[in-house]
Structure formats: structure tokens, C-alpha cells
């Protein structure tokens, strides 16, 4: 599971918790704060996405940079 996926799942969990009746107001506000944190982390992951994501598999099973030109 990658980081983005984990964060996304956590966000879904937060919604599920808030939809249940048992969460009190203080906890709700904490959950909301965590939700905003997650959103910012997701955005950070996107903004920092590397350009060199494309690799080529060499004959000896090592990875090299893929020449897209």
C-alpha cells in the first residue's frame, strides 16, 4: 500500500467515524483537523511527484532510465 493510498483510506475511515453517532464533538473536531492534514499531505505528494518515474527493464533485470526522446 503506498502512502497516497493509505492517506486516502484514512480519510474514508474518518468519514465513517463521523457518520457514526458515537463520536463526540471534541473528537469530531480532532478528526476534522486530521482530515485537513491528510488533504495537505496528499497535495504535497502530488506536487513532489518525480519526473523520472519512467524506467526501462534491462536484459539483466536491472532498471535504467527510459529515454523518452
Amino acid at each position, binding site marked *: 500500500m503506498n502512502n497516497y493510498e493509505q492517506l*486516502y483510506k484514512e*480519510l474514508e475511515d474518518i468519514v465513517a467515524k463521523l457518520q457514526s453517532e458515537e463520536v*463526540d464533538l471534541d473528537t*469530531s473536531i480532532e478528526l476534522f483537523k486530521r*482530515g485537513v492534514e491528510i488533504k495537505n499531505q496528499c497535495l504535497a505528494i502530488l506536487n513532489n511527484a518525480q519526473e523520472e518515474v*519512467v524506467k*526501462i527493464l534491462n536484459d539483466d533485470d536491472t532498471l535504467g532510465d527510459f529515454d523518452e526522446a
Partner: protein
Amino acid sequence: MAKEIVLTPAAVNKYLKNILEQDKFLKYFTIGGEISNFKRHSSGTLYFSIKDNEATISCAMWKNNADKLTVLPKEGDQVELKASIYLNVKTGYYSLNVSDLSLAGAGDLYKRFLALKNDLEKQGYFSPSNKQAIPSFVKRVGVITSPTSAAVRDIITTIKRRYPICEIVVIPTLVQGVNAKDDIAKNINRANELGDFDVLIVGRGGGSIEDLWAFNELVVANAAFNSKIPIISSVGHETDTTIIDYIADMRAPTPTAAAELATPDIQKLNQDIDQTIKNIASLVEQKMNVDKIKLDNLISNQYFLNPILKSISNFDNLSNKLNQQANNLNLKLSTSQNKLENNLSLMTNLVNNKINNQTYQVKHLAAGLDQLNPLAILSRGYGVVYHDDKPLVDVNSVDVDDEITLRVTNGNIKTRVISKETNE
């Protein structure tokens, strides 16, 4: 007479070779017929004959041309060859030097395609229950295709645009030519052995049915079927369907579509996250509203508005409590009293019963005694006779003129004995 020219066999063959090879009709021509004696030499050269009902010609197809073929002919196939004449000077035999070979008409290929398709279908290769799900969030995509193709560029561009946080690994693969089927199969297996791929995109751009043929081969079908990594196939254009398209876990009409099926759209994900945050905010707000209403209710309570009321109410409460306690106490007392009374009455009854019982017994005894009471006998008219204050029971104990006393029920009578006689 001029001296007759004597030719050597070599000279004749060379001459013929020259004529044949220079002939403009024989330099490059198309010939159609049936394949026989097909052999593939280890060097990669194909040797076979092309024949019709009347004649046979030997053919050779050198490795450089043979490697371009995706579909190898087999015995009895109707083919068309692009060829030129070649004459072997040593033997004088001539053959065809084949530069290209195609199966005559798509009919034969289609028959092969259908035969393999039906066979694999019967074996369950296309069964939906064998399909694997494509993960929602892929980390690493393997792309099995030619590294120089437009297809690979389309896939890379699309994935970078949609989901730039995943890694793309291009696995350079021959997708056309006689070696393509083995290379495709090998690389599907290789990706599985290496592991760490969430999905494989296997395919190539458009081309003729022969160009796409490697994707109709059994070895590719087996590799795709046995792959533990989900496969998205994209072979040729939307109208081309190859065997691997039936086996793949998903089939994409184009390389771009394959990339779209493999990855989520991060822009959409971010919109979803935005929306989710809004939902969370609204849920929290709802909770706050509920709490606020509770608070309002509390604050608007009369005791908050007028503290004296609360004191009065407290006093009332206290006096109510006292009353209540008093009542409780009374209740307890009266209960005790009742109990006591009940016990007393019970005791009285018991005692009375006993007394009654004793009285009865006394009366009973008294009645018995009455029957023995001499006074009671006297009352029935009997009398007791005393002489010298002793009861007189023997007639011989008195004499005539003796004073005797008669005792009756209510008094004594003094009398004298007038006469006496003894009973017999």
C-alpha cells in the same frame, strides 16, 4: 566453317544465371501456391517448396527476411511469395529467393484464430472467474511493448498526466516478427518472476492481421493466462481482437485507454478528497449544531434566568423530600404497628383458644364430678343417715330410740329409730 564453340557447364549455368537474373519479369515477382517441405533451419533461414498441381519450385527465405514474419506458414498453407530467381551455378538448379511471404487471404489466418479461440474457450481461458481485479491505486506499472513505439509514448504520457506518483517500467519487447510470440511470453513470465508489478499493460499499436499475429499465439495465451499480475491488453485498434484480449483481465481499445484503465485520475482523486473534507466539515458542523441546541436549551432554562427561583425550588424540593421522608417514616411506623397489632391479636387468639380449651376441659371434668357429688344424689330425693356423726350403713349399729340424723339436700333432720329389722 568456323570452329564450333564448346561451352563448359559452368559457362552455361553462369549464362543462364545471368539471363534469368537480369530478366525484368523475373527480378521481382509474386507467385502463389501451396507450401510443402517446410523447414526452419537453425540459422533462421526458411526452406520450403511452392507447388501447384503441375509443378514445384524450391524456395529459400533468408533470416533477415524470415525474422520479419509474424506468422510462419505450415505444410499445405496457400501462400503468396515476393521472390526473385536464384540459380546455383554448381548444380544448375534454380530456386526462388523469397523476400516476403503472406498467407493467401485472411481466411486461413482467421480459421487458425477461430480454432485456437474455441480451443482455449473450452479450456476456460476466457472464464470471467479467472479474471483478476485491477488494483485501485497502482504503485508500479509494467509496460510490455516495443520501447520505440507510439504506443509506449501514449501510455507513458497518459499515466504521467493521470497518476504521476506511480512508477512505469518499460519492458522492451518484440511485438512483430517470428520471435515476437516468444519474447512477449518471456517478458510476461519475467515480470511475474520479478514481481512488484501491480498491473501489466501488454500490447502494440495498429497493423495488419499478420503484424498483430504474435498476440494470437498459444505461448502468449498461456503466459497471459498464468500471470499472477493482472493484465490489461491493448493490441492494434479497437476493431482488432486478438486471443490475448480474451484472456487479459481487461481489454483496452487503445494504448491510451489501457493507461487510463491501469491508473486512477489523481485530479479526480483530489476533487474527491476536497469533497470528502467538505463532507467532514458538514458532519462536524451538524454535531456542533446538535450540541449548540442542547446548550441553548440548558441556558434558556428558567433557573439560569432567575436564580431565586432555583432557591425556592430547592426549598420546595427539600420540603418535599422531608415530607416524603416523613411519609415514609409514617408508613414504616404504621406498618410496624400493624404488625404489632397483628401479633397481639394472634397472641390473644392463641391464649383465648387455650383458655377456652381449658374451660371446656374443666367443665367436662366438673360434669363428671357432679355425677359423683353426693349432694347431687340428695337432690334427687336420697338422704344420708348419720349416727354418732358417722354414716349409718349397718342396721345393727343402732338401737331403737337411738337419735340419728338424716341429711337431705338442703338440711338435716334429727329423728329417732322407731323399729328396725334386718333384711334377709
